[in-house]
């Protein structure tokens, strides 16, 4: 089943130990980071966003409709998108955040997109 924006928000909150509303990492922020992920993907793997070569890049929001939207990327790269969102969340200047963890997620994001498997 295709992953939705709501699925991603839930998984990000789990991985960030942020399960109790009001969230530290709001759904609106996560939606913004998700949109940024597509800009970064356009830079390193343009073939993954070929559908948006002649249109605007997708934008996301935390409304009920927005959360039900399917993330428009091949599902094998869903975890890479999630890694990018996690790295951006961890990059915030909060006292609970770790720069090393943020960088690790960013590296995982890039590795999943570009590193040869074999």
């Amino acid at each position, binding site marked *: 089943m295709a992953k939705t924006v709501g699925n991603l928000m839930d998984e990000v909150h789990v991985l960030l130990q942020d399960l109790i509303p009001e969230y530290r990492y709001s759904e609106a922020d996560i939606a913004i980071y998700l949109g940024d992920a597509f800009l970064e993907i356009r830079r*390193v*793997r343009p*073939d*993954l966003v*070929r*559908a948006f070569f002649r249109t605007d890049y997708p934008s996301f929001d935390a409304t009920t409709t927005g959360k039900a939207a399917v993330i428009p990327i*091949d599902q*094998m790269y869903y975890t890479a998108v999630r890694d990018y969102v996690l790295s951006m969340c961890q990059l915030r200047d909060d006292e609970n955040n770790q720069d090393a963890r943020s960088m690790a997620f960013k590296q995982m994001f890039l590795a999943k*997109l*570009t*590193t*040869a*498997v*074999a």
Partner: protein
Amino acid sequence: MANSPAVDRLLDNIRINLPGATDNTILLEVFNTLKDWCKWTKNWQLTVELEVQPGCRVYMFAVPAGKPEFLLGVAPKKDGAVDGTDPPSQISPGGPGRVAATMPEPGKLVLQYEPNEPQTYCASVSLNVTDPILRTGLPVFPDWLIEQHDEALKEGTLSRMMFQASKPYTSLQGAQYHGVNYRKLRNEARNSINTGYVYGGQRWMFPQTVNRRRY
């Protein structure tokens, strides 16, 4: 509209060799490979009939699918050797009874001389893939082309995919290896097509100047 089993098998063969490749990109390169294939081999041919009239040298014609790319030959239909049911490759430019003509644009036939009387001409053309793309992501082309040359099309697509920059499946060595295989199969196919797939019909691939069976 679903793909034929042969197309599905071709795509599966490509997918398992390209970890991390998306179907969209594979289909794009399959299109490019098909375009190169049709251009080099003239594998996809069609004979169209034209009603020619005295006083007119230019005729437009349409084909049901694909894009006319090369004019293979024109001959009067009443010529006993040629009619609409003959294999198109039997109409060769310069052969006996052939009509001098060119195709400066796809679908535009220009005769060198005006016909003397109203009659029917058969024009043999090679076709190539073109827009529109179907919902499957592939253009219109004959299924037998994939069934007969799936190995070559796989090699060509793999070569193009592996030549792309900064992908998990990027491999210059792989691109070269599959590229050599593709060109070898393409040349073999071209020879088979020129001889009408008759085994042993033509043993010379080069030089063509000593090929007296061609016309």
